[in-house]
């Protein structure tokens, strides 16, 4: 379970980024967070991941069986001097595992994201979509209990993005980690999640919340259904209402 109570982030310069964020993502559920650019979405994720400090309020990340929290960055952030397999192996090696100990886990996760044939390739030889797959594989190789995703598909073309949506959902349904997915794309937020949180413009707080009733597994055709469009319209209105003109 991931939860935040009155989470505040302000910089010494006086800039307030988060103004009391409240939400709960129950264990094993997939939650999207949409908000206008600069509303503090990424800052919130970085605080939850322990990369940045909050200035007030509280948050908790509860993970079963001492599993870890993983993070998929906006950019693939692969190390260009390491092969795909070595990049994916990195979190395990940083934990002290040897190449041999990590081999099975790396092979398995590369298979799951469809990169089994590219384990020896280098990042500059991959397309944008494949780089992001490798980045997701790196996040999943530690068998995390929760996954934070910071607009991971923002730089991809429509087709690659739609494919990765389906793949990400399949991975989630199989492995059932808790997911918090940040995006500014409303259709993406709805298509992936069981619940959509709407964040206000800076200073950010959670302004509205929408359950997503569509059953799993979802097909790409869902996006063109009237129910999907209606929900997207309501999310859009909520987003518009919270954003200062």
């Amino acid at each position, binding site marked *: 379970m991931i939860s935040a109570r009155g989470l505040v982030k302000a910089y010494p310069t006086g800039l307030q980024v988060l103004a009391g964020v409240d939400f709960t993502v129950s264990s094993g559920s997939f939650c999207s967070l949409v908000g206008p650019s600069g509303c503090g979405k990424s800052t919130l994720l970085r605080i939850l991941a322990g990369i940045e400090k909050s200035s007030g309020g509280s948050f908790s990340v509860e993970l079963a069986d001492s599993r870890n929290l993983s993070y998929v960055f906006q950019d693939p952030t692969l190390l260009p001097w390491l092969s795909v397999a070595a990049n994916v192996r*990195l979190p395990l090696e*940083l934990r002290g595992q040897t190449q041999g100990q990590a081999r099975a886990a790396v092979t398995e996760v590369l298979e799951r994201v469809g990169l089994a044939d590219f384990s020896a390739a280098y990042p500059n030889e991959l397309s944008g979509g494949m780089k992001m797959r490798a980045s997701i594989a790196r996040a999943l190789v530690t068998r995390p209990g929760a996954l934070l995703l910071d607009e991971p598909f923002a730089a991809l073309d429509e087709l690659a993005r739609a494919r990765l949506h389906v793949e990400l959902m399949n991975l989630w349904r199989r492995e059932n980690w808790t997911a918090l997915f940040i995006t500014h794309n409303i259709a993406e937020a709805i298509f992936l999640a069981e619940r959509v949180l709407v964040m206000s413009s800076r200073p950010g707080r959670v302004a509205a919340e929408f359950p997503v009733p569509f059953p799993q597994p979802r097909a790409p055709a869902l996006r063109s259904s009237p129910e999907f469009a209606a929900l997207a319209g309501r999310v859009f209105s909520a987003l518009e209402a919270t954003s200062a003109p």
Partner: protein
Amino acid sequence: MSRAAATGFRRLLPPLLTLLLALATWDLAVRLLDLKPFLVPGPLRVGRAASDHAADLSRACLLTGGAALCGLAMSLLAGFAAALVFCQARLIEVALYPYAVFLQTVPIVAIAPLIILWMGPGFAAVVAVSFILSLFPVLANTTAGLTAVSSAHLDLFRLYRASRWQTLFRLRLPHALPHLVTGARISSGLSVIGAVVGEFSAGYGSDSHGLGYLIIFTSGQIKTDLLFACVLSCTLLGWCLFSAVSWSGRRILAKAHLEPV
């Protein structure tokens, strides 16, 4: 002719033509302006002086080249080590970096005699001058490479609670390698200049002379054609060292899947 040889030939042809054109212009200028050989000797005269003193020149090139190579090697080791220290503690970097800039700004011609005074003439003193002149580019570039790691990659390492050593060995060092190569390329030319300047003030002994000594000696005797040959030898030596360092740097970076900077 194979395809690779043809490409190589096409790549070599333009600089070769430039060289021929420059030599022809030089020769023509000397003839038409009727320049005195002791002021500006023509290319043929310089060539003859070089072949007459081929043995002396090649021995001098070996000595100067050896000293430059030693100076460069020391710069690489010391510059790399100092950069490692700088990247570990910001305080040390801030405290020492301004003084490292001294190495770049100190008039080397003026302090070379001092170094020889302290170390005594000979190979070690020449190497020391070459080392001082070529240290800064390695130090500055490697420090930049070690510290200018992208914040996203640092976040990644922080997320997995990587230790300082893990971050150094797995992130900072590979990231700094292309910068180190750039520093080494700049320093390779400087190391030759440093060795020649060192030889201006210090000889190696009675019967072994470096290019720096030959330059002083021939200019004193107004053997301008041989002086030209010496200067050209210096240039050629620097060019060879630069090319060798560039070539090995490219090979190393390609092997490590790193882009040159």
